[in-house]
């Protein structure tokens, strides 16, 4: 039905290529990023690579099935993976506070580390700052990459307010903690002597004064202590943020934008595609999750509905020959005008129930029940075809906007995924969608 040949994303060559070292799954919330990341990791491992999956917020049962429900911030080997190709799957769930603490502990002497960890500003920052989770995910990615123990790292990105946060937050946090403003706040004495900085200094004292008033003074002091403690212990957040950023641009990193065939998710995906291009981040393609299909696509929604109506009409004609009104329609129940007929009918819905009819396989009762079922099947099909059409239209809008983006479609599953078999199935569907 699509107008032009869509470029197809073939995930297997991407996963198999030894040069691929990092795969980042990004996209709007609720589109199946975590599941996609886990499925890709499992597939790569079963195809012979040594993989670690870094997840942010997996569904509990999925985490349990991978053995990473204990939040200890360390990759664990996942059991039950087919290792006949000599691959391994490791997985971990990000604990952002713990990651932040670890950075501090790794870079400061114990005394200074304790001072930082106990600083109230640090405590809020490490647990609460809107970008901390994003920053820590990238930090953890940097750490895992530096250890060089895995062939491939698959990263899930946090469920951000907007897809952009994940690219912006590390920079923002880095530039805040290492930037001019913090330096102004923390080192007013140094600047005082320089004539050229006079204006700034006035501005600054006004600012610290105002911020102090607003936040109650103590906070500012906490910030100052925190930043100076941090600053001397390791080489600045900006440097780290920059390094992580470069890692994302490096060859060997592949971004996969994950979306569902829905308007908002694809709008976000388009936005992300543009942003990645602007930042020189290597985009491998779009993974379109939960795409529906039909084995009976030759039958249109309209024809299916018309046929269902034909059957319903036939049934009404049938019923008029003796059992009129027996179908438990709400009208019959709610009507107070004819209590005589409504009451005895209520406990006798057997006329259309399969239990009664199945006894007589060839009887008229079965024909009616089967017609009812068939009409239902046709209506169900009409709903499916409408959904299919809507999904296709939404996807076509995206591909006409971004014909350069390769797309892999993942056929929808009726249920949720919470075990390795389910992930394997998703992986198969992902590879087949090319």
């Amino acid at each position, binding site marked *: 039905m699509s107008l032009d040949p869509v470029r197809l994303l073939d995930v297997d060559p991407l996963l198999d290529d030894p040069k691929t070292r990092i795969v980042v799954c990004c996209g709007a919330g609720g589109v199946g990023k975590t599941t996609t990341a886990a499925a890709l990791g499992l597939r790569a491992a079963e195809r012979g690579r040594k993989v670690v999956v870094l997840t942010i917020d997996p569904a509990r049962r999925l985490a349990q099935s991978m053995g990473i429900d204990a939040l200890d911030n360390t990759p664990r080997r996942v059991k039950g993976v087919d290792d006949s190709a000599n691959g391994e799957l490791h997985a971990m769930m990000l604990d952002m506070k713990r990651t932040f603490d670890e950075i501090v502990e790794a870079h400061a002497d114990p005394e200074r580390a304790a001072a930082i960890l106990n600083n109230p500003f640090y405590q809020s920052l490490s647990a609460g700052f809107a970008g901390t989770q994003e920053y820590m995910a990238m930090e953890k990615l940097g750490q895992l990459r530096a250890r060089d123990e895995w062939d491939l790292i698959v990263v899930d990105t946090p469920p951000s307010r907007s897809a952009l946060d994940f690219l912006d937050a590390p920079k923002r946090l880095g530039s*805040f903690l290492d930037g001019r403003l913090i330096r102004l706040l923390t080192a007013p004495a140094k600047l005082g002597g320089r004539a050229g900085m006079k204006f700034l200094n006035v501005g600054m004292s006004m600012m610290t004064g105002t911020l102090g008033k607003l936040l109650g003074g103590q906070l500012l002091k906490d910030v100052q202590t925190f930043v100076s403690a941090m600053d001397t212990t390791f080489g600045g957040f900006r440097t780290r943020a920059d390094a992580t950023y470069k890692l994302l641009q490096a060859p060997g990193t592949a971004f996969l934008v994950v979306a569902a065939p829905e308007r908002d998710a694809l709008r976000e995906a388009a936005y992300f595609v543009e942003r990645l291009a602007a930042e020189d981040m290597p985009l491998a393609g779009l993974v379109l999750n939960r795409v529906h299909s039909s084995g009976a696509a030759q039958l249109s929604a309209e024809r299916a509905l018309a*046929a269902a109506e034909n059957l319903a009409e036939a049934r009404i004609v049938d019923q008029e020959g003796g059992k009129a009104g027996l179908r438990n329609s709400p009208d019959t129940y709610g009507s107070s005008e004819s209590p005589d007929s409504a009451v005895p009918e209520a406990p006798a819905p057997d006329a259309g129930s399969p239990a009664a009819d199945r006894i007589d396989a060839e009887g008229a009762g079965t024909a009616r029940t089967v017609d009812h079922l068939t009409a239902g099947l046709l209506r169900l099909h009409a709903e499916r075809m409408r959904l299919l059409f809507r999904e296709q239209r939404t996807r076509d809008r995206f591909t006409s906007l971004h014909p350069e983006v390769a797309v892999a479609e993942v056929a929808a599953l009726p249920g949720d995924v919470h075990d390795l078999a389910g992930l394997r199935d998703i992986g198969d569907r992902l590879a087949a969608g090319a």
Partner: protein
Amino acid sequence: MSRLQVVSGKGGTGKTTVAAALALALATEGKRTLLVEVEGRQGIAQLFETEALPYEERKIAVAPGGGEVFALAIDPELALLDYLQMFYKLGGAGRALKKLGAIDFATTIAPGLRDVLLTGKACEAVRRKDKTGRFVYDYVVMDAPPTGRITRFLNVNDEVAGLAKIGPIHNQAQAVMRVLKSRETAVHLVALLEEMPVQETVDGISELRAAKLPVGRIIVNMVRPAILDEADLDLTRDAPRTAIAKSLSAAGLGGARRGGVAERLVEPLLTQAEEYAERYALEREQRAALQALGLPLHELPLLAEGLDLAGLYELATELRRQGIS
């Protein structure tokens, strides 16, 4: 009926849509509601098909019966400048602070401050009165951050308490908390009949309750129509395929013989029914989990034609029909 209605939900559940439909539903009979957005995503503008909202209350829709819906995208930086102006008459100095990045710093990095400003602005709108002493807005509906962050977001007092022990921000936080923990406020959660959103709703509610924040209703969004009933589903399991083929044929869909057009439809149609049955069972399980929470439960249908402005009014009517306003 609480005058501040906070709508949260897992990402992808359509909480902005539900918040907008709720604002429309509450704006009946000449009532006036304010729909506020706090995450800078311009989701409301997209939904109402208007240009990006400024930091300014602006009428965006008229509800049936003459009610009005206003919208406001709260920008934390501008809210802080507002606030500084209100308390310190800063004027130009405020702009200088902005240039220096101090405002950005204060709203971004000082944890909790941003949230106090956002919730504070919403609370201000709740309490605002006109010259005659009448409330300017009958209801304020907030399109809030997702379930995973909602308790933190609303529990500003705890967040700020550790940092700003005294001072105007501290006082502001106290005032905001008084509104948020009172019966003036109700926090609604939007869910889907899927495992993750339901689990997150269950977790979110226990967090809200632990923080003594008033939990309102659960709104299940995008509920698909029930097409096959239990009896039909029972029958599909040992369905007489030839009978279905005959039935399809009778409905005018071609031959029922082996290899006939109708006959070839039977398998794929039954496969779709199987998928439906699996989903149906799963949805029932999830619905039961939500019912067990003992909160008012509402369901909104999945709109067959996708969501547009007309669909939004349809959802608002549905909410009204279910007695939400």
